C-alpha cells in the first residue's frame, strides 16, 4: 500500500500548490508556473516510483 500512499501524497501536494498559485498569480505567468510544477510532479512520480518499489521490495 506504500505506492498508493506515495501517489496520493504527491497529488495532494501538487493540487494544493496549484491552488495556491492560482490565487497568487494572474495571467500567463500563472500558467508557466503551473506547467513547471506539473512537470516536476510527473518527473517525481516516474523518478521516485522505482525507488518506492525497491524499498517495498517489489522490484
Amino acid at each position, binding site marked *: 500500500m506504500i*505506492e*498508493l500512499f506515495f*501517489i496520493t501524497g504527491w497529488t495532494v501536494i501538487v493540487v494544493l500548490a496549484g491552488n495556491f498559485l*492560482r490565487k497568487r498569480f494572474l495571467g*500567463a505567468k500563472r*500558467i*508557466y508556473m503551473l*506547467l*513547471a510544477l*506539473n*512537470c516536476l510532479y*510527473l*518527473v517525481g*512520480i*516516474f*523518478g521516485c*516510483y*522505482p525507488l518506492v*518499489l525497491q524499498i517495498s521490495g*517489489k*522490484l
Partner: protein
Amino acid sequence: MVSSRISFILEMTRRDFVERFAGSILGSLWAFIFPLVNLLVYLIVFGKIIGARLPGTSDMYAYGIYIAVGIIPWGSFSNTVTRSTNIFSDKKNIITKLNTPLPSLFVHVSLSEALTFIISITLMFIILALKGASFHCGYFLLPFVFYLQQILAIGIGLLTASLSVFITDIRQLVSVVMQLWFWFTPIIYVVDILPDFAQKLMVLNPMFYIVDGYHNIFVYGAYPVFKPLIILTVISHLLLAFSYMTFRYLEKDIRDFL
C-alpha cells in the same frame, strides 16, 4: 473569472456528449456501447477468430488485450491532437461573437477525450476482472501515463491550431501525420517484428514509450520503463510551454483572422 472559465469548460464538455447522442433513444448509453463493442471485437476477432498469439504467451486473449490497451489511449491522443488542430475553425461562430477564453477550448477537448478514455478503460478493467486477472501496483501509474500523453497531445495541438489559422494545409497535414504515426507505433503489431533500423528509429517516437507503458502494465503485469518517461515528461512540458508562448504571441492575430 476562474470559476466562470471552469463552468465554460464543463458546459462545453457536457455539450460534447449530449450533442453526440442527441435525439437517440438510448442517449448517453451509447457512450458505453461503442467502446464495449470495440473491445469485444478486438478480443474475439484477434484472439479467437484470427487466432493470433502474442509472442511468448499462450493466452488466447492476450493479443486482443494488447491491441485494445494500445488503441484506446492512442484514440484519445490522436483525437485530442486533431480536434485541437481544428478547434478554432470549429468553434469560429462562438469565438467571433462571444468572449471565449481560447486556452479553455483545449482543456475542454482533452477533458472530453479523457472522459471517453475513462469509460473505455473502465470497461477494460471489468473484462480483465472477469477474466480473473490479478491486480498489481502498476495500475496506479495509469493516470500519470495518460496525463503525460495528454500533455504531449495538447502541446502538439495548441501549436498546430495556432498555425492552422494562418496555413490551412496544416489541418490536412496533421491528419496524414497522425495516420502514419499510428502505423509507426507498435499498437497492432509487436515491436520485435520490425527490422533493426526501424527499431532504432523507434527511440525517436514518444508515443512508443507511452504505448509500451500501457502494454507493460496491462499485458505483462509489469511497470513502464521509467527513464524514457522522465525524459518525455520534460520534453512534453517544454513543448507545451513553447506552444503556449507561440499561441500568446499570435492570439491577437488569431482572433483577427477568424
